[in-house]
């Protein structure tokens, strides 16, 4: 074999994973703009869908949980309690769902041009975040109407809750986005996780009720779900300040929960990235 000086040579198609997204900032912006600009372009109601879907969902939950099951007697400002949780879970479901299908949706590109493929799940997660903003605006409006005012703690709780939801979406999104390319039935797991997300976190009920029903290790397992922490943080941020001090309704050890959840999310992101990179090598031929 001829010996040539190999300095300056690259192996094509080997990126640095998520890190590569940072030096493709301009492309990321354009992909996000494309996603937001084209999504509702051919629909009559357009962007209103970002409001209509959560509104309909909220009304149904409120009718069943609040009116039929009479939760609004036990939980002060139940509408706000409910909406704060729904908004968090909606963000997760949309971000995770979009990220999962992002590689398959962009197959025309993935098959023909090399670019860091992490750009696709990450851009769709950011698009989900943009669609989440109008929902937060409505939530804030409702909160302010019943006397909510921002404090450092409430804003911090909101920010940490957001970080947890986004990290969890990214980790699971990378994992299932990659699996989805080779095994289209991976989508079934995704649907189960999305369904569970609403019911396995304190959105429609309170932690206090779970604590009564689940004892010992079962409750510990329940609390390991990072989405539970995120939903509780949203409750801390938006709902708690509007009540006359109902902290006992919420998670008993939220600070500990935050660290555990951030740790679990970090592990999920690492696993997601490792699996993604393993499967990425054959994306172009499997699609």
């Amino acid at each position: 074999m001829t010996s040539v000086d190999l300095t300056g040579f690259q192996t094509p198609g080997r990126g640095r994973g998520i890190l590569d997204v940072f030096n493709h900032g301009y492309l990321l912006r354009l992909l996000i703009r494309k996603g937001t600009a084209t999504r509702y372009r051919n629909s009559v109601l357009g962007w209103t869908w970002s409001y209509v879907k959560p509104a309909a969902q909220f009304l149904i939950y409120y009718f069943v949980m609040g009116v039929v099951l009479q939760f609004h007697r036990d939980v002060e400002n139940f509408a706000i309690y409910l909406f704060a949780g729904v908004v968090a879970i909606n963000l997760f479901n949309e971000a995770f769902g979009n990220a999962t299908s992002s590689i398959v949706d962009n197959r025309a590109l993935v098959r023909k041009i090399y670019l860091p493929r992490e750009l696709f799940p990450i851009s769709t997660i950011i698009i989900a975040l943009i669609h989440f903003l109008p929902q937060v605006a409505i939530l804030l409006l409702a909160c302010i109407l019943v006397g909510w005012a921002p404090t450092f703690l409430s804003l911090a709780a909101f920010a940490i809750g957001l970080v947890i939801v986004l990290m969890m979406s990214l980790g699971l999104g990378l994992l299932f986005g990659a699996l989805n390319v080779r095994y289209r039935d991976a989508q079934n797991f995704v649907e189960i996780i999305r369904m569970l997300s609403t019911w396995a976190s304190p959105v429609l009920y309170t932690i206090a009720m779970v604590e009564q029903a689940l004892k010992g290790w079962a409750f510990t397992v329940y609390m390991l779900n990072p989405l539970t922490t995120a939903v509780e943080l949203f409750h801390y941020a938006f709902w708690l300040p509007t009540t006359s001090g109902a902290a006992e309704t919420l998670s008993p050890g939220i600070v500990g929960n935050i660290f555990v959840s951030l740790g679990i999310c970090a592990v999920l992101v690492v696993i997601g990235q490792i699996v993604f990179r393993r499967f990425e090598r054959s994306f172009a031929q499997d699609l």
Partner: protein
Amino acid sequence: MSEITTTQKRPSIIVENVRKTFQIRHTHSMKEAFISRLKRKQVGSTPYNALDGVAFTVGEGESVALLGFNGSGKSTLLKLVSGVLEPDAGRVLTRGRVAGLIEVGAGFHPDLSGRENVYLNAAILGMNKAEIDERFDRIVEFSEIGEFIDQEVKHYSSGMFLRLAFSVAIHVELDVLLVDEILSVGDAPFRKKCTEKIHELAQAGKTMLIVSHNMAMVQELCERGIVINKGKKIFDGPIAEAVDAMNAK
């Protein structure tokens, strides 16, 4: 083992004993893949070598034609060089910015305007905003799209679409250009213009790896030809002899 035609200049592309095996997957189901793994049988796939033991280098500034019949593995080889696919054995190394005229227009979105698509696709091909701003007028001029640039691409004729897509791809900042049969598209005058543009890039010292069935054009553009047959390199040398070797097959 396999001989490598060394060139005087430093290489821009090194292909070392590359094998690419496609698993023809009979299943896209996790359940079935899992069950066949449990049963320890390989029902999932039949391996197929699209490329086997291919080795060569392309020197900086060299233009090399890649010849072979359909299905011989030319496109697969270009995809390995561009990084879309990874080899199963051997390795591929490149130096400088690699760009491909391979299925141009892959990143175009029909609902976006021509202008938006130019920016999006140029960014997909690796350019930043300043580079695109600087080239934008030249891209539009080359494509002859004119005032249609602000219309949605879905209203373009297929010719207009191809011209714009090609124009974006050819204006990418690059050191190594991969061309895959793209020169057979578009109408005659535009085709001529594209060939001239590629000539121009070759004159400017860009490295080229060109797949084309147009023997006249290939002989004009390249001084060297590599013939691939059924995934194996069967000839590597002066272009005239390569064309003969190809025709003798």
